[in-house]
Structure formats: C-alpha cells, structure tokens
C-alpha cells in the first residue's frame, strides 16, 4: 500500500465519474432520439442510435474495469458489493435506453400525431428520473447530504411518468381509428419508456439502503 494505491484511487474516481457521464449521456441521446423519430428525421435518428450504441459499449467497458480494480485492489471492502450492484443497475438503465431506441428502429411504430406531445413528455420525464439517479449516485460516492433530495426527485419523476403513461394508454384504448394490434404495439412502447423510470426508482430504493449501511 502506498502511492500506487493513491494513483489507482484517483484513476478509479475518474472512471466512476466517466461511467456516470455515460449513463447521463444515454438519457440525453434517448430524449433526442425520440424527438427525431417523431419528426421522422431518419438520418439524424440513426446518428443518435449509433451514438447511444457507442456510449453503451463504453459504459460496459468502464463498469468492467472499475469492478476489476475494486476486487483486485480490495478497495472499499465494506461497500464494495453495494457499489458493484449499483454500477450494474445503472448499466441496466443505460441498456434500456439503447434497447428502446433500437426498438423504434426495428418496429418503426406508426405513432398518431395526437400522441406526439404526450410521448415526448413521457420520454423527457423518464429521462429526468435517469438524470436524478445519476445525481444521486454521485452524491452517494461523496457522502453528500444532498443524496436524499436527489433520491426524492427520482420518485417524483417516476410518479409523473406513471400519470402520463396511464393517461396515454387510456386515451389510446378509447380510440376507434386504430386496430387492437396497433394499440397493443403502442402500449408496449409507452409501457417500456415508463419502465425506465421504474428501474431508476428501484435503483434509488437500493441506494437509500446502501447509504444507510454506509452511515457512520
């Protein structure tokens, strides 16, 4: 144990920050991707899809590298398993954002004009919850007193997502101009976008427990 550890520790701190940047970036790309899809700007959408795939790839690499270093150097032994779980859960959020954009690309759903505003709102609110969980994770790593505030915001945006998604689905199933098959497909999109905020809330719940465990 010496300056080597100090160097590794500084490097790891940077990597953790970069990993969280990737998650946050994925949220921003997803939001832009949904808007571009609704605007039917296929070229720009493909660009975002490519970007989010790269971001997800980078995120995976960072996570693996962090996990390896934490184990090999037996760093933060008391909180290590919690931190690793947190990283994996955050990575799942990143994956979900990427998978969602790919689903747009694969299924090319036909979204009626009247749903665009709500869908954009849903995507934005879901990504607000992702942003809030990224801020929560940063606060957790720094034992910041703002952690509770950020965690509360995740729950708030998840509740907002629920409201919008229920409103959208009710409106969707009351329409007569769409087939049940079409409704079913759109419902799946709405549900899966809202599910990202649910996942963010799950991470927030775990994070509250990790924070209690770390409490001095």
């Amino acid at each position, binding site marked *: *144990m010496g300056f080597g*550890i*100090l160097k590794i*520790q500084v490097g*790891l*701190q940077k990597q*953790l920050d970069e990993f969280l940047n990737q998650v946050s970036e994925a949220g921003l790309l997803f939001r832009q991707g949904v808007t571009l899809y609704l605007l039917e700007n296929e070229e720009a959408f493909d660009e975002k899809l490519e970007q989010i795939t790269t971001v997800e790839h980078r995120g995976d690499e960072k996570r693996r590298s962090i996990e390896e270093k934490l184990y090999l150097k*037996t*760093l*933060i*032994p*008391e*909180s290590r398993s919690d*931190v690793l779980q947190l990283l994996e859960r955050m990575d799942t959020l990143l994956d979900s954002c990427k998978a969602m954009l790919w689903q747009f690309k694969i299924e090319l759903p036909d979204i009626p004009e009247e749903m665009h505003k709500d869908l954009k709102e849903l995507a934005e609110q879901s990504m607000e919850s992702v942003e809030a969980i990224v801020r929560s994770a940063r606060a*957790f*790593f*720094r*034992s*910041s*007193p703002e952690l509770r505030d950020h965690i509360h915001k995740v729950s708030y945006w998840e509740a907002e997502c629920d409201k919008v998604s229920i409103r959208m689905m009710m409106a969707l199933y009351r329409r007569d101009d769409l087939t049940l098959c079409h409704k079913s497909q759109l419902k799946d999109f709405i549900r899966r976008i809202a599910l990202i905020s649910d996942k963010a809330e799950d991470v927030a719940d775990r994070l509250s427990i990790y924070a209690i465990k*770390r409490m*001095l």
Partner: protein
Amino acid sequence: MLPLFLSSGLFLGWSLGANDASNVFGTAVASRMVRFRTAAVICSVFVILGAVAGGSGASHTLGQLGAVNALAGAFMVAFSAAVTVYMMTVARYPVSTSQAIVGAIIGWNLFSGSLTDPESLSKIVMTWVACPVLAAFFAVAMYVPIARVIRGTSIHILTQDTMTRWGLILAGAFGSYALGANNIANVMGVFVPVAPFHDITLFGRLTLTPAQQLFFLGGVAIAAGVFTYSRRVMMTVGSGIVRLTPVGAFVVVTAHSLVLFVFSSQELSNALRAVGLPAIPLVPVSSSQAIVGAVIGIGLLKGGGGIRWRTLGGIASSWITTPVCATAICFISLFFLQNVFGQKTYRPVHYELTPAAWERVIDMTAEDPTVRERLEDLYMERFADAAQFRDALRTRLPDAQERIKPIMQLAEMDPIRITAEGVQMIDHNYLTPEEIQAVEELSGQAFTHRWRLAEVLAEQSPAWRKRTESNESEAERMRRLKYLFDVLRGNPNGSR
C-alpha cells in the same frame, strides 16, 4: 539451565503475540481494510521496536505485587501465564497478558507464603474497570467529531477509503509500539537479572544492553505469535462483538492506543499534576480490555442494537477466568516443580523483629505505647514466611491494621554482605563515582535488613539521600538501590 527457563518467557511472548496483536489490528483485518500479512509485518516490526527502545521498567507495579525471587519460580510464573493465555487464545477470547501474569504471581505468593500487596492489587484491578470505560469514552469522543467532519466535507468514498487505510496502519503501528513497550517487561522482565549477555555495539553507534537483547528475543517471540496464531482472535475482536465500519475500526484502534499511552506516559501524568489535576496511576493496562471497551463504546453510540451481548459476556467472563486460572495453574505446577523435580521455586524470606527493627518499631509507635506492649512477645521471634508473620500481627493489632505493613517492611530479613568482589561488579556507567565510593566504604559489613543498608548508605553519602519530593527522582533512587542489591547478591547484569 537458562535456555530451558527462558523458554517459558518465549512461550509467553508467543502467546502474547497470538492474542494481543488482535487488539491492534483485529478491527482493521476483520473489516478487510488491511491484509493480514501487512498487519502482521507492521505489528511485528513495531512490537520489536517498542520492546527494545521503550520496554524498560514497565513491570514496577507487578514487582510490587510480589517479588519472585528464584529462577525456577520465575520460569513457572511465566509458564503458567503463557499456558493460560494460550488456552484463551485457542478459545478465541482476547485476554490480558497482564491479568495472566498477575494471577500467576498471586499463585507464586500463595505457594511461597509471600503476601500479595492489597494496595497494588487493588490499583491493578481498578484499571481493569477504568481501562475499558476510558477506552469507550475516548472512542465516542473521537467518533462523533470524525463522523461530522466526514459528512460535512463530502469526501469521495475512495478518498475516504485510502485515508482510513493509512489511519488504520498508523494507529496500528502506534498501538504495536505501545504494546511492545508496555508488555515486554511482563514477558521477559523476570529474566533480566540472570541473562548471560553483554553489551553489543552495532555499526559502531547503537549499543544494545543485555536487557534490550533479551527484549529483542521476546519481541521476536511476540512476532512469531502474531504470524502463526493471531488471525482467529483478530476475527473475534474485529467482527464478533459488533460490526464496525472501517472508520469505526480506525477510531477503536486509536482510542485503544491512546488509553495505553495515557496509562504509561510519565510526561502526561506530570503535566496533569502541574495544572492541579490528579496524576494518572502509571500501571500496565490491558490492551484487550481497552479494545473491547472502545468497540462497545461505538456500539452503544449507535444505539446498542448491533452488540452481540453473548460474545461480550464470554469475553468478560474470560477476564475473570484468566487470573483465577493462572493462579491455580501456577500454584499446582510449583508444587510439582518443587516436590517432583526438586527445583528451588522460591528463596524463603524470614521475618523477625531484630533489635534494629524493634528500635524502629518503638520510634514509630512512640505516640501509642500499647501497640509496642502488644508486640513485645514477638521480639526476636523468627517467622518462616510473610503470611505467618502477618497473621501474628493481625491477632495482636486487630484495631491497628494500618501499622501492619510498615512493621512487616521493618521485620523482613534480607541478609546481604558487601564484598570487594560485589563492588567490582557495579556498572560504572550506571552508578555515579560518589555512589560507588559510598558502597566501597561499607566493604566487609553485613546487613540483616535491606532498609538498614539503604539507611546506612544515606548516612554515608548525600548521593544516596532522598533529595527532592519528586516521585520521579525517588523512583530512580529506588531503582538504583534495587540494582545495587541485585549486583551485591551476585547478579552481574542487575535489573535497572
């Protein structure tokens, strides 16, 4: 015979390493912040450093408790303590080596008919309560501000991790040094007067005295104990009582080291006295008790819910079992050593109110002639051991118990003759020329009581007189007198 007798000291050193290293690094290793091997290396190095550099004179209080005066007896005292500590280590309980030694000395006292000084004993027993309480207090007093600072400054989890690791290592090194300095005299102290070593000078600068060489050996034995057997007790201390966070572990080890420091720092004691506060009794304290006290302090601060009271009960009961067990083992083993193996386990100390002693008793009891009258039938009567003489005094002075101790000191027979050979053996680097000259002038004279020699020396030369009221200079005078007695009895190295 010496290597054989020395083996029990090395065994005790090994047991101490196996058991007490857990106090210093247990919480760090159990919380996986420091690897066992790293902990063992640091602990060994600093224990040896502490033993060699700061290990002198820590056994004074034990010396007052009972004066083991034969090598075979010393062997058995160390051996009984070692067996007791070993048994407790196997049972995974952190015990106090001092407690084991105290128990063994009491066993020797019982066997040899010597008295156990109740004052010294109560002083030692008092620290068995004060030490964990003080450690708990220190731990809580440190934990609250440290937790507040960490929360307030929002340190990154990884930075905090590195800082805590360094903190644990530094606190552990400090604790190991204190452990070596405090406990080596318990392990090797009894052998200092008989070690056949001479000064060794290393690299033309560093001189190691025979005592330091002996302490080095003891330190190596402790290190061997750390490496071979300490891991299991570390786990009991580290995670058995209450689960600690790494920061909690750091606080616990630091509080423990501070307690050891407080109870062994002459400077701190003097400083407290200088500002009008009561001085700290300088006694060897148990590092096991300090660590357990600190762990409980943190546990209680967190509401006490996480404390495993059953484990704690086991540890606390082992603190009672340890001295009792050591007493019993020592007493029984001495019986066998003396009667089966024909070894001399103690030098009988007789008691007699000789004319010189009687004169002092008369002076002492001038204001109460009835005391003298009641003791008259004891004049010139010889008692085989301290216990018999004390009982005789007790029946005659049931209402003046406070007089018994000084009368016993006066009546203790400690015949000594000052010879030219004896004077030749005195270390000129330790005693001053004036002191040696005063001894030389008494050549050929014999003394029945130790106090009488001290008195005559004081009459002879101002160098041997009590100069100031300072406890420290008086303690130094006593050390020099003890050294002189040892040398005149034919122990070339003496014990300083």
